[in-house]
């Protein structure tokens, strides 16, 4: 029996001890009308060998394309040690560290993680993770509404250059609580949002503003001015950032005069594989005075009976298992294992390594943009500095080009047709440090061939 160790003799002994004749009797409190028939639609069991063959076949079918897509999930090199340690049974098969004395490994690791995230973002504190970047933004909006007691409305102004899926997710999660998320239009030339746009969207009262850096298009926002505008208008400032970019870019804690109040984002670039979209992790950091409004688990350092340093879950009075309907969020299980990987990843790369990753990603994307926009019929859509993504405009629909590129083994980028139809045949590309000049030349060569072929046809 897969994963069940009982022998026939043991089953007999256990039933005798309980005082029943058979296992079925143990279910006699379930009304007979509800007892399930055989689950006939389930397949027969596979041995480990058989499922291995099946999964290898399917994995091979999907293949490994040379990837130039970002759009919220980024391919970075992950040191071999990261997942070897992360999948040690002691991390992999433990649960939420409620019994602190038996969970010091996980707890100390989370404390180190909180310290690293606070350092990257320039904020005072961090939680132990949320589900992903999109849901973290939703939680940040809810948190800002709870925390900003000077604001009477529940209006959150969101830069129109934020990831459009994040906006959808934040809307779906916050709608029930009557939060209004209003988009502030981005400038068509720069692909960024300026204070004038915020000013015209201002209305009577603003609870919070959401500023992405880099924004969804890869463009760099004037975060100092936007952050100051938010504070000048009584709003809390929420930064949505890429943690790898932060090794290079100004920490949100230093934006403008006062710095951002809440910082969140997608943690995936820190050692988590692409894996078709998950599991990733959301991160959230904030200024110290807001810590009691933060959702999710938090680990604190303290001492034991003998005065030795130890770590424990703290501020649990915010959480659902204590506060029930008055909790800051319903979140319980978060993305602990991903945080384990991210912590080891950050320790192994350090500030210097992560800065190199960011710098090479930026340089590779610059090289890619130059190579593709030199082909003729391809041009950059926005002006101004970018991090490691850029939007290009083609002279023909992007989808067919992407299919042809996929046939040539290249994931050529992300089409913006559905999210931003106003940008025309817009293709967003990304080249992280995992790409090399040969990859980029290969992409340019194939794209040239495809565009030429299309013209000829």
């Amino acid at each position, binding site marked *: 029996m897969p*994963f069940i*160790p*009982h022998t026939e003799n043991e089953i007999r002994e256990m039933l005798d001890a*309980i005082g029943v004749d058979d*296992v079925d009797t143990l*279910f006699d*409190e379930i009304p007979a009308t*509800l007892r399930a028939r055989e689950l006939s639609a*389930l*397949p027969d*069991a*596979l041995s480990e060998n058989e*499922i291995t063959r099946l999964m290898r076949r399917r*994995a091979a079918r*999907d293949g490994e394309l040379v*990837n130039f*897509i970002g*759009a919220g*999930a980024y*391919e970075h090199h992950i*040191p071999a040690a990261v997942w070897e*340690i992360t999948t040690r049974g002691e*991390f*992999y098969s433990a649960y*939420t560290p409620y*019994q602190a004395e038996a969970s*010091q490994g996980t707890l100390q690791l989370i404390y180190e993680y909180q310290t690293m995230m606070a350092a990257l973002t320039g904020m005072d504190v961090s939680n132990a993770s949320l*589900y992903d970047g999109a849901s973290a933004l939703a939680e940040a909006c809810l948190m800002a509404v709870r925390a900003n007691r000077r604001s009477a409305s529940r209006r959150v102004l969101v830069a129109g250059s934020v990831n459009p899926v994040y906006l*959808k997710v934040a809307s779906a999660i916050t709608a*029930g*609580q009557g939060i209004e998320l209003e988009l502030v239009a981005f400038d068509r030339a720069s692909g960024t949002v300026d204070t004038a746009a915020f000013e015209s969207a201002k209305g009577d009262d603003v609870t919070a503003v959401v500023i992405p850096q880099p924004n969804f298009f890869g463009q760099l926002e004037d975060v100092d001015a936007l952050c100051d505008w938010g504070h000048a208008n009584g709003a809390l400032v929420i930064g949505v950032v890429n943690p790898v970019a932060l090794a290079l870019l100004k*920490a949100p804690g230093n934006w403008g005069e006062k710095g951002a109040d809440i910082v969140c984002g997608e943690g995936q670039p820190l050692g988590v*594989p692409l*894996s*078709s*979209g*998950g*599991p990733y992790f959301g991160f959230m950091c904030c200024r110290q005075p807001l810590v009691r409004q933060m959702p999710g688990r938090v680990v*604190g*350092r303290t001492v*034991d009976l003998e005065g*030795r*340093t130890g770590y424990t879950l703290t501020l649990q*009075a915010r959480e*659902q298992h204590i506060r029930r309907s008055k*909790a800051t*969020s*319903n*979140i*319980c*299980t978060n*993305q602990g294992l*991903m945080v384990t990987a991210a912590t080891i990843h950050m320790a*192994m*790369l350090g*500030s210097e*390594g992560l800065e190199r990753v960011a*710098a*090479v990603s930026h340089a590779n994307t610059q090289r890619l943009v130059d190579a593709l926009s030199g082909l003729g019929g391809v041009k950059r859509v926005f002006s101004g500095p970018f991090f490691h993504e850029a939007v290009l405009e083609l002279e023909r629909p992007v989808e067919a080009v992407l299919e042809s590129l996929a046939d040539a083994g290249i994931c050529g980028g*992300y089409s913006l047709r559905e999210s931003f139809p106003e940008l025309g045949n817009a293709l967003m590309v990304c080249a992280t440090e995992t790409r090399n000049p040969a990859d980029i030349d290969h992409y340019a060569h194939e794209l040239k061939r495809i565009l030429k072929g299309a013209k000829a046809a």
Partner: protein
Amino acid sequence: MLIFEHSREGRRATAQAPREKPHVDIPAKFLREKPAGLPQVSEMQAVRHYTRLSQKNFSIDTHFYPLGSCTMKYNPRACNSLAMLPGLVTRHPLSPVSHGQGFLACMFELQEMLKEVTGMQGVSLTPMAGAQGEFAGVAMIRAYHQARADLDRDEILVPDAAHGTNPATAIMCGCKVVEIPTDKHGDVDIDALKAAVGPRTAGIMLTNPSTLGVFERRIEEIAKIVHGAGGLLYYDGANLNAILGKARPGDMGFDVIHMNLHKTFSTPHGGGGPGSGAVGVGKRLLPFMPVPVVAKEGEGDAASYRWLTEKDLPQTIGRLSAFMGNAGVLLRAYVYARMLGRDGMNRVAEFATLNANYLMTKLREAGFQLGYPGRRASHEFIVTLKRQDKELGVNAMDFAKALLDEGFHAPTTYFPLLVPECLLIEPTETEAKEAIDAFVAAMVRILEQAKKDPQKVKGAPYSTPVRRLDDVRAARQLDLVWKNDASANDKVA
């Protein structure tokens, strides 16, 4: 020692980062002024540090972990290695579906298997944990009423024994919580339920078996009462392991269910996640499922798979994650389900229940008092230590800590809140009889010790890396982030 204390200026793991640092042409006003202050260590130092940290954990792979309501069953290793195969682990979520057919086939088949075991009509895999599955469920219930222009229904009924996530979820969805009491046998108080339902009732959230470890025997009557009042029924799948293969929520009258795949389908708990909270729905809620959902077109060799999005499900409650949820967790659940197959799935609840009833019987014989002695255990049960607390001054927390010294992870303590000094104990089906017998022997030893020398038990644990921690200090003198200066550290040490 913290990783930061191994750090030395100028040291780093060279081979793991790019060789070059190219010039960056981004204007200075966008850049950080000084490095981020991450640790500067060698690869080996990082490996040794985190390997040693891992050794300070209890885990399923090292210890019996009977944490009630968490279903800490064995996590098969093949589930991990196969989900990490190149082609699956390297696939970008936005790469063309033409290059994701292998992955999508797994997801579609998982949806179908989950429909079958729960008796529901549709499954969406996107919620990323149980609490997000709950959110999806209640949001769908609200959307259903709103689509019918039944706009006053904003009350969610929640039994007082429910997980804290239930009332917290109802509030997140903009509903009000109406608490329903439990009767003395551990069932929902039917008279109180009848009095609570009405034209404001949006639905009820139920765990069955309940968090008290007993099956809700009058579930059909509850369904009739709630449906009769115009409300819908939500099944919290935290305890699905108790009935897997034996009874199906869909047959009990539930309209929507979330499953904790990290419990019932054995994906890793990972020190606090990632989970996966797939939702199943009955016919009425099909149009409202969160997107994306996987659809299959054609059969056999001609079969292909694609995502259903907002265009296909215009009444959807929307998206809950940036992509499609915890895909890698879902792959692990898929591998587990295929290795169990039809017969294995039927056996899960049987052996989880056999182990729980055997352990319950042995503890009762050893002199421990049960929370609900007249009832069968489901996959878990409650022991109450209120007598030991009163007579010996040794409470549930003391027993929990003493168990750590005995080499067992503690059961869930002080939950559910209804039973004083309780331990909620869930052995799961993957534990052998001898592990259960050893646990009973440990409980007996602790009880004997408590009678002879209660202070000794109250001082436990002794053998763990730290002894009991000062939680009050942790909350009052908040130290959430390490500071690299002596004065800040002095405050702690």
